[in-house]
């Protein structure tokens, strides 16, 4: 039996919005420590890893490990039925074939209940092993979103160069070229200032289409971490207020 009550219902909405472009159907793995999801996109170029720890919910109860097969698109549709300030309660039975969603508004005078049919998804559970990266860049998530958006007007791919001085995003396309450089500690605001933890210079090329998809998670966190090593997938991580994270992995583009 799973029962999880989320004070900030909008958080769940944002999370689903952040992954629904990449994942169509996926298993949510629930255990006593929290709710997790790992799924690849259809073209197997990107991977999404999501974790919401138990402390994100109040209360949280999960008697045994559960795997809930959910159609993300349908889940998003139902979540739209709740207002932003609503509290959301998720409930699922051990052998049930559906997920119950309860929305309560702030004053507690309106509750609505929905039921989502679950799917039985048979898929391999794939993950990217944790490694140490040559370069770890922490920067403002809004800034990252803007960079991706701007460069995507030029080209389908972006090359990211990390050096001691800063991190440089470059794109070359038919209509011209552009590059954006962010230096360490450029921003005044402590929260959003850029930090670069560099072991070794590195330069990698990625598809902008996917990066743009990742930036759908921007509302979840004010800063984003990009972890890179040459010829290894990029890790883009959005931390959710100490209660979890959304991580994206993206395979580098290999020159043909």
């Amino acid at each position, binding site marked *: 039996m799973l029962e999880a009550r989320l004070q900030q219902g909008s958080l769940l909405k944002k999370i689903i919005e952040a992954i629904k*472009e990449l994942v169509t159907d996926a298993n949510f*793995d629930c*255990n006593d420590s929290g709710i997790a999801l790992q799924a*690849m996109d*259809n073209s*197997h170029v990107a991977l999404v890893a999501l974790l919401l720890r138990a402390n994100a919910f109040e209360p949280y109860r999960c008697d*045994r490990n559960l795997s809930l097969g959910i159609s993300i698109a349908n889940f998003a549709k139902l979540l739209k039925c709740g207002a932003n300030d609503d509290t959301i309660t998720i409930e699922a039975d051990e052998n049930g074939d559906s997920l119950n969603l309860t929305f309560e508004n702030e004053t507690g005078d309106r509750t609505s209940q929905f039921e989502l049919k679950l799917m*039985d998804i*048979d898929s391999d559970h794939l*993950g990217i092993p944790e490694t140490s990266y040559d370069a770890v860049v922490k920067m403002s998530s809004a800034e990252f979103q803007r960079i991706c958006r701007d460069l995507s007007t030029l080209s389908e791919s972006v090359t990211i160069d990390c050096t001691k001085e800063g991190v440089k995003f470059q794109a070359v396309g038919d209509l011209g070229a552009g590059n954006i450089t962010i230096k360490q500690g450029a921003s005044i605001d402590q929260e959003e200032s850029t930090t670069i933890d560099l072991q070794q210079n590195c330069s990698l090329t990625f598809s902008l289409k996917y990066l743009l998809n990742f930036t759908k998670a921007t509302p979840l966190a004010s800063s984003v971490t990009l972890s890179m090593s040459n010829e290894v997938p990029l890790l883009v991580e959005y931390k959710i207020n100490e209660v979890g994270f959304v991580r994206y992995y993206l395979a580098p583009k290999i020159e043909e």
Partner: protein
Amino acid sequence: MSPTVKRKSENEGEIHHHVEQLDYQSPKKLKNDGPSTFELQLQKMEAESEKMVDPVSFWNRPPLPKINPNEDPIIFQQIEIDDYVNIKNNSTAEFGSTKTMEPVIRFYGCTEKGNSVVCNVHGFYHYLYIPAPVNFKESDLPAFKEALSTNNDVKKVEIVLRESIYNFHGNQKSPYIKITATLPKQLSGIKRKLEQGINIPGFGERGFNTYDSTLNYDLRFMIDRNVTGVNWLECPPKKYTIRPKQECVSNCQLEIDIGYEDLISHEPENEWSSIAPLRILSFDIECSGRPGIFPEPKVDSVIQIANVVTIQGESKPFIKNIFTLKSCSPIIGSHVMSFENEKELLQAWSDFFVKVDPDVITGYNILNFDIPYLLDRAATLKVNRFPYLGRIKSTKTEAKDSRFSSRAYGTRESKNINLDGRIDFDVLQMMQRDHKLRSYTLNSVCNHFLGEQKEDVHHSIITDLQNGNAETRRRLAIYCLKDAWLPQRLLDKLMCLINYIEMARVTGVPFNLLLQRGQQIKVISQLYRKAIEEDLIIPFMQQEVAEEQYTGATVIEPKKGFYDCPISTLDFNSLYPSIMMAHNLCYTTLLNKQTIERLGLKKDIDYIVTPSNDMFVKEKHRKGLLPSILKHLIDARKKAKVDLKKETDPFKKSVLNGRQLALKISANSVYGFTGATIGRLPCIPISQSTTAYGREMIEKTKYLVESHYSIANGFPHDATVIYGDTDSVMVRFGVQSLEEAMKLGREAAQFVTQHFIKPINLEFEKVYFPYLLISKKRYAGLFWTKTEKYDKLDAKGIETVRRDNCRLVQNVIDTCLRKMLIDRNVEAAIDYAKQVISDLLQNKIDLSQLVITKALSKTEYDGKQAHKELADRMRKRDPGSAPNLGDRVAYVIIKAAKDAAAYEKSEDPLYVLEHNIPIDTKYYLDNQLSKPLMRIFEPILGDKAQSLLSGDHTRVISVAAPTIGGLMKFAVKRETCLGCKAVLQKGEKAVCAHCKPRLGELYQRQIMQFNINERKYARLWTQCQRCQGSLHQDIICTSKDCPIFYMRKKIQKDMKDNTNLIERFKFEEIIQCSKTN
């Protein structure tokens, strides 16, 4: 790489050992432990035939009997015709030596005894007509000849009375000038001069319309002398001369000369309807190849040539031999000839070919591959005596590119190969013309028609087999022999040769033209043949693309739905031919206003006005040519059908059946000929009147049936016409029993027929019960002609017959229809459809079911197309195995990034199989299955049908992980619990702590699954062994058309996964054991 990845690969290696060891082994290990079934067949044939002395002694034709030209006629069946120019040296005392040139027609043929004959026919000249100018007299002829002639090309001019085929002229013949050319090829020059205009003394400069000017010389001769395709010719005694051996130009046993008026042509009737004992050679070659590259004649050698020679009408081949490069172990029942040198091999084959002197050459794709390859290879190796495969000794055989384009058959590129005097009959071309199939590989064609598969050996393996030893080459030789024999068996089974010969006889077209040309030539040949009887001549018409479109056939708006009552179907038999006959529609009866005024004709007494406002004169004034051609064809067909019923000899039966089919097709193509606006002789008034009558008749039938069979007239129910198309109407009489429906149908057909002019005949043909009417041209029903048992399930326009979707759709729709219509169990049909959808989403459907094929018909498409893009991608990977122009490309749709276009998602099925690439099951559900399913279920279920596509059964899915692609080499698989799919913690191997109590049950489940798979795999494996014909040899077949192949591969992979899972339980056991200890 991380240690986990390493472990995975180790595992794979181990499993490889488990499962793969059965599969492909390197050819060095190939051993032959016993005869295959095909070998047994060869053996049997050997035993049945008499003891062989020397296999080469069979090569020659039977010896020529002694012929006395003064007493013995020479009778032979001609199979091909060509012509040449004979240059005669006339030396006379007065003028010295002069050269005269004379055209000669040359027939190639075969006598009843099987002797080959060349017959040179002398004295026939090619000609055309022009209308004589007003007041042109006999005395003007010399001046006219003088004006027209250049280089002595006009042999003769004369005034004759003829009539143009176009329009009715009041049965008045007019004077025409017949111009005879010295040489056939000069005629087109004369035609051009006449059209451009010549200056005739006394008549001034003027141009002429030419008549009968587009026929070629050979056909002209055949028409004038009433020679049809492949008929029997007789040279009466004393009229012919036999050429002495030293003057013979051909390899034939007998060469004779005869004047054209002495040659007797027999109509292919009664005793003359037989077929000579033609020699049919079917062959196949194998070439060595380099990995990844399709064999090229400049580099890759020919390593084997297998030949099978059969005499027409006999069931067994009398020569089976194989020419191999390097030694080859003996094959029972076959003559193996081994050569160390490729040049010797080619020359020996060429000698064999000439010696056997086949009348018909067949094989699979020989015209575009085997023969050109041999010719090119021989040229590369400078085997100079090789390319003389025709019957004329001095003519070199060459392959020329040709392009064939026809409305009915589409555009095909092919090679034209001159094999004088022999019929080349490529089974592949015939298949592509006459049968619509998903795939045209020899394997799938054999599967379709003979019900048996053959191995499909990839060309890269062929080289390995060749480089092995005599045993491996024997293996290849058996494969090659089978490939040579199968086309022959297809010919026999489909009776192609007989059907084509009958078609040639009925339409009068030479055999070789039937395969090279479209439908028009057949009608033209018949038109000329009829026209010449009535002194009619055919004008040359400029081909112009007419914008004019006339209305086609009518369709009565269908009353859609599922009818659980008998629906009687009434058909007009041969609708268009019978309309043309009934109303005397023809070129010769077409009237215009001027003629009507000039001859003072009266409407409805002398002529009729058709519903499309065209006018035709009535039969009492002139009987049309087309109606009499049609009458001839239809009568002949009736006769053939009557004979067919009486005939008991199966061979003669097949000839008659071939004939009646040929007649039917010919009759139907006459209407099309008049409507072909870019054809030789289009006549829109005829074709539009025909369709207009057709429309009127369908409407009238509907009215008659509905008004007569009504409650008002004392019938128990009001009959309704629920649908009607072109030549048939479907009537619901309202009765419940089949018997009544048939009785009423028969009555109604008779009743309606009375209201139409003869020979229009409405016939009751069948009852559909039940009947599912989906929309125009789309329906299905159970087909009854007798009350005891239904004949078949008939489906029109439904996905069961179309080729542009995957086999899954076809199977599902077919099965659903069966359940609905035959078992009358709609519930079962729904359950079945749901089950298939569920299986599809769980990846349980065989890949072969999902393959879509599409012909790569052009190099440039507007916009991107899935099959074209894939062909390009495959070419980059391996140019050898990539599909070429004209091939059908097979592909499946794979998962890709969101919103990717379909053309980005197409992939080669084999590639998908090898790399475990996930299939886009959603695409198959939404784009392939949903519409056809909705169409058949909506009439029954109404709005509820939608639940088929979104019910509970769609909620169990399976997502496969590929072995290639962006992230896959970095990703690590984490094990999940086999009971509840929860991610496993450290130390847990098979199940999570929670599911531990179920361990036994889960283990058993896996073992059971494994057993099922194992059994399935074993069965598939034996199936393949049977197909290749040996239980002791490895399977080397990689046929892309074979569902078994995909199943075998898939189950192999499933077992690998299975074994992996079972492996996981081992650790559990150890843990448990250690705990209990």
